[in-house]
């Protein structure tokens, strides 16, 4: 994984999407997990599980997006070369 992208709201996705590399990972957090209801392409996708649950989206997450715990979040940060935070 080259870059881990953090997307914390749906509007932040527009800036992030065109710049993704196939080797990158995207972690959807906070209101960004609403994006996980659809198929996303361009990288490997994760969504923060406590934020999915808090929004009642557990049954609505697209199959190509993997749920991630906070421990997984730390593992993703460790596994990448850099973290980019997108804001809108």
């Amino acid at each position, binding site marked *: 994984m080259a870059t881990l992208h953090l997307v*914390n709201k749906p509007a*932040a996705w527009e800036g992030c999407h065109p710049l993704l590399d196939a080797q990158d990972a995207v972690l959807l*957090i906070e209101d960004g997990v609403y994006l996980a209801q659809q198929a996303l392409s361009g990288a490997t996708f994760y969504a923060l599980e406590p934020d999915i649950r808090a929004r009642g989206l557990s049954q609505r997450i697209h199959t190509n997006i993997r749920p991630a715990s906070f*421990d997984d979040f*730390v593992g993703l940060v*460790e596994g*990448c070369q*850099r*973290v980019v935070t*997108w804001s809108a």
Partner: protein
Amino acid sequence: MVISIAVHGAPYASAGSRTALRFAESALRLGHRIHRVFFYHDGVLAAAGQGVAPQDEEDLHAGWVRLGESHGVELAVCIANALKRGMLDEAERDRYEKDAATAHPAFTIVGLGQLIEAMTAADRFVTFAA
């Protein structure tokens, strides 16, 4: 792994302060080191020592203080953002002759250079947006 964290959002108004705190707690539990948490923009309000959280809500300020005091994590507050939002430690209270110090002593008020140092001293730098 050594991690530095930046928090841009105010507690309660933004989810970022809570997400950052949970991330930091996980990282410490997994054996990583947090070099510094840098509170920037509205994030500085996490230092508010006089806040009282409702009983049915998480006390984020207390969570940060616990992280600082129990794990020796440096909680650094941007001075420019802190002063204009009324976050003063004892030294700034004296300097500006205000009535009270409002920032909890677990937090230190620092210059922007400490944000750059936090980036360069850590293996990973993670920003939590507002």
